[in-house]
């Protein structure tokens, strides 16, 4: 590199001297370099089908300025001035066209946005309707299931009463073939996993109180085991033996005593927001 420099410099100087002497004799007018560049930029802009039609006046202006800059007879200072103006006017034309292009684009974009907003609203309405439909369907299904289980709604939740036909006298084992209601309860609980149950055993007043308490507790446990065998999580089921403490009818008559011998299953209402 270094020898190149030392060699090149004198050569350039020599060339310069030759060029100078040539110019002095016969100055050949040339189009200023800047004007050539301005012409190229202008031509590119004029042939831009997207932009050119958007700034006709500015392009006419730029064309005139470029033509002026291309004149051969101008003094160097005037030529430089004309080139500057020409370049700037080409840039102005380009910026004007770009601004207008963006403004037109905005109309289309705004229309697109309106369409999207409308669609979003429609979808929202649809989805709200679907949610409402689903909730109604669910409520109806729940009611049907409750009806099927012969349960009644109370302040404590749903109360399902299983009669003494489930058990042999003084026994806590469930009678085979009498568990249809329990099967329905198990299905119900698997469908509504946010609900839990309390199983209460009750007896009539025949027999000792302690014995009755124990029997009612064992019968409640027996129902709980049945539910667990049918897939209900043990944590959702609690039991309580009530003995003869909460009769629903008089223990004086056989019919009343039969009503009192029962298992009540209280299904808790779900947490408020889930339905």
């Amino acid at each position, binding site marked *: 590199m270094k020898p190149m420099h030392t060699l090149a410099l004198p050569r350039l100087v020599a060339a310069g001297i030759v060029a100078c002497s040539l110019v002095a004799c016969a100055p050949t007018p040339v189009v200023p370099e800047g004007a050539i560049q301005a012409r190229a930029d202008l031509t590119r802009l004029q042939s831009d089908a997207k932009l050119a039609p958007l700034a006709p006046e500015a392009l006419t202006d730029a064309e005139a300025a470029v033509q002026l800059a291309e004149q051969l007879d101008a003094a160097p200072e005037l030529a430089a001035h004309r080139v500057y103006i020409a370049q700037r006017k080409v840039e102005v034309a380009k910026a004007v066209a*770009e601004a207008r292009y963006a403004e037109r684009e905005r109309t289309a974009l705004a229309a697109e946005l309106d369409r999207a907003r409308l669609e*979003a609203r429609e979808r929202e309405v649809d989805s709200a309707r679907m949610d409402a439909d689903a909730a109604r369907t669910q409520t109806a299904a729940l009611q049907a299931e409750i009806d099927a289980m012969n349960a009644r709604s109370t302040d404590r939740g749903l109360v399902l009463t299983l009669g003494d036909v489930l058990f042999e006298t003084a026994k806590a084992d469930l009678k085979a073939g009498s568990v249809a209601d329990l099967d329905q309860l198990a299905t119900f609980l698997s469908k509504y996993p946010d609900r839990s149950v309390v199983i209460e055993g009750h007896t009539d007043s025949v027999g000792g109180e302690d014995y009755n308490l124990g029997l009612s507790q064992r019968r409640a446990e027996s129902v709980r085991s049945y539910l667990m065998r049918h897939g209900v999580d043990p944590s959702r089921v609690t039991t309580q033996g009530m003995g003869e403490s909460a009769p629903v009818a008089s223990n004086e008559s056989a019919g009343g005593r039969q009503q009192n011998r029962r298992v009540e299953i209280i299904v808790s209402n779900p947490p408020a927001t889930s339905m």
Partner: protein
Amino acid sequence: MLNTNHARRGRRRTGLLAAISGAALLAAGCASTPAPTAQIESAQQAIDDAERAEAAKHASPELSQARSKLAAANTAVQNEEMEQAARLAEEARVDAELASARTAAVKAQAANEEIRRSNQALLDEMDRAAKGGTQ
């Protein structure tokens, strides 16, 4: 901000007028080229327009160039270089016009970008709703 701008412009105007009238007197005296009053006025007008369009924010190099060219034009008038003054004033005007045009383009493009962003946000939102809403 506005006040200082006005004040600055006012001062500039006064200086400009003084320069022009001074130059005019001299020109009359010497019977040489008259000062390029019209060019200087129209350059000032173009700069004012650009400033109003907030070119200082969106096309500040072009606006600065316009201002310093106009200042140079006024100096040239004082030095009785009328031809030079006329050229500088014309260049100042074109610089200011470019500042305005670029500002308009930048603003329009930014506005479109904003709409595009809202649009995309909305589409994303709908997408999420469509995916998450069916559970």
